[in-house]
């Protein structure tokens, strides 16, 4: 998972020098964001330019008369030098214009607003589940290092890092839907309930609650369960491993020996003394894991026909709908940058050693 790499970018944990250094550290982090965003936009722009599909033909079709093609080419500014084209692209982005999707005929921004809430619903449910299981598992594995429990946790989390999400999704569909019949099929909701609930947030479970349609809500929850399990397992591995590693470090601290010497109970030492000290780096891990879920979401949504931004991205890819692909890529990159920034900032704000 690329999330682990970004953790290398964390500031050195023991920087002293008072409030000014801390503020300038935060400002430094913030100032790096526009540069990263600029790079992000430049990359998507360049990807859009090297692609083998002629954007003019994509709009007017390959049977258009030559004068129409020439006019559209002028309108798109494709006769200008590349830096000028990049300037035009930047200006368009600043106006919130990501172009038009050929497939849906809507503006890409509109499409993303339509599809994103479903991804948000899925990713949030998955991260919550992964936290509830992963953190205690990591803490206990560290407390009993080398025990059978530790080995089981290690193997289970290594397996989670090794199984492709789409294979796990297919196996779940086979077992829970086809063989056992305890889970509903793909999609966000049963066709029977389609259109019953007015769209407010775009998250089916929440919308059904707002409309007080409890049967729909239950059905939406049931549909959410399988993709959530798959995605949760995907990030569970990372969260458990990091928790275990942090805990092992914390448990080796001298204050733990002191606490033991004072005769405190094992559980109290574990949670109040050791765990309290790893809570801050864990916030970083959670933010990175959440960002990593965006990646897993693309594959999971494809398997479960979940109408999120990942499905939108892959369907656009297969239709060579370039504006949609680049728009979705840019938005996902943006969310990724914001999550990384939050991880970094939370570290600087919450950890007293960075003050």
């Amino acid at each position, binding site marked *: *998972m*690329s999330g682990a*790499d*970004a953790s*290398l*970018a964390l500031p050195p944990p023991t920087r002293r020098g008072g409030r000014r250094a801390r503020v300038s550290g935060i400002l430094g982090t913030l100032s*790096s964001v526009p*540069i*990263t965003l600029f*790079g*992000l936009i*430049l*990359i*998507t722009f360049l*990807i*859009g330019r*090297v*692609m*083998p599909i002629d954007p003019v033909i994509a709009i007017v079709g390959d049977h258009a008369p030559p004068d129409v093609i020439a006019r559209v080419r002028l309108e798109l500014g494709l006769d200008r030098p590349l830096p000028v084209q990049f300037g035009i692209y930047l200006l368009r982005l600043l106006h919130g214009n990501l172009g038009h999707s050929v497939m849906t005929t809507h503006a890409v921004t509109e499409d993303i607003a339509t599809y994103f809430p479903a991804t948000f619903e899925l990713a949030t449910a998955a991260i919550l589940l992964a936290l509830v299981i992963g953190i205690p598992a990591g803490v206990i594995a560290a407390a009993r290092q080398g025990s059978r429990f530790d080995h089981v946790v*290690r*193997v289970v989390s*290594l*397996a989670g*890092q*090794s*199984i*492709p*999400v*789409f*294979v796990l999704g*297919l*196996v779940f*569909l*086979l077992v829970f*839907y*086809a063989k056992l019949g305890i889970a509903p099929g793909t999609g966000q909701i049963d066709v029977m309930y389609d259109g019953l609930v007015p769209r407010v947030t775009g998250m089916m479970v929440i919308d059904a609650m707002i409309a007080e349609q409890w049967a729909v809500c239950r059905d939406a929850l049931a549909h959410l369960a399988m993709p959530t399990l798959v995605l949760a397992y995907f990030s569970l591995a990372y969260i458990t491993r990091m928790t275990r*590693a942090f805990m*092992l470090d914390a448990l080796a601290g001298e204050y733990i020996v002191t606490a033991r010497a004072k005769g405190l109970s094992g559980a109290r030492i574990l949670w109040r003394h050791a765990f309290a000290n790893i809570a801050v780096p864990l916030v970083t891990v959670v933010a990175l894991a959440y*960002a*990593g879920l*965006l*990646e897993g979401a*693309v*594959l999971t949504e*494809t*398997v479960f026909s979940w109408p999120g931004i990942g499905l939108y*991205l*892959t369907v656009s*890819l*297969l239709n*060579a709908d*370039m504006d949609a*692909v*680049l728009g979705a*890529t840019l938005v*996902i*990159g943006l969310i*990724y*940058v914001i999550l*990384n920034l939050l991880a970094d900032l939370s570290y600087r704000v919450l950890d007293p050693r960075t003050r």
Partner: protein
Amino acid sequence: MTSRAWLLTDTPSSRGQAAWGRRYRAWLLFRANGLAFAGLITVLILIVASLAAPLLTAQDPNAQHLANRLAFPSAQHWFGTDELGRDLYARILYGGRITLGMVVAVVGMVAPVGLIVGCVAGYLGGRADRLLMRVTDVFLAFPRLILALAFVAALRPGISSAIFAIALTAWPPYARLARADTLTIRNADFIAAVRLTGAAAPRIVLRHVMPLAVSSVIVRVTLDMSGIILTAAGLGFLGMGAQPPMPEWGTMIAATRGYILEQWWVPTIPGIAIFIAALAFNLLGDGLRDILDPKQR
């Protein structure tokens, strides 16, 4: 003196003996880690099996027998047949060549590039460092699969664009790692000594800094291989990697996922192959990290 005693002696009499002794001790540590050892064995089996694919099966991975589609595993077809009646066992074996080939190609591009960028940035420092690290930050700012997807879409789907796209998204962590190592090495006394003898910066970086940064890069490579396998399979699954009729595992799953409910073994068997390959590299990398980098656990 037995060779074992020669290797484990506390008083080596030559540089070679000391070096081999150190390697032997690392090997003993590695052997003691059952999971890592199992990973190594599995990786070796995978490599041998895909290299020796023509010896292990007489079947042609691309020969179609439409009369015998979607057959259940049998004595004749060990893993059954796929939607065009092709032998799945043969396709899995030949598919291993594609997967491992992609991994080797990606690593072959990524590790040297990351190493050079990281060592140069770390050694030169200053503006060059800031510029290079800013570039790596930008690449790190994308989720890997999504950037790879966009690249492949631009280059048109296929195995070489998949390799190129994965490589483009995989090098930044190596650069960061090599830079971190270089920062600790560059102020060492022996570097100052080399500089005093009049060595130029390229020579110092290539001959003295880089060799020391290699070992952490190797651990990272082993741990990364499962990620590369999964990304390659994911690209194949989304129709953006190797194209049919190539027996790439992810592509095979994509082509037959519709059969999951009836002929479940057809898409499941390539899935198991991906899982085993990725797990083996993960176990191996995990064990190597334990030995070479005891800090990280």
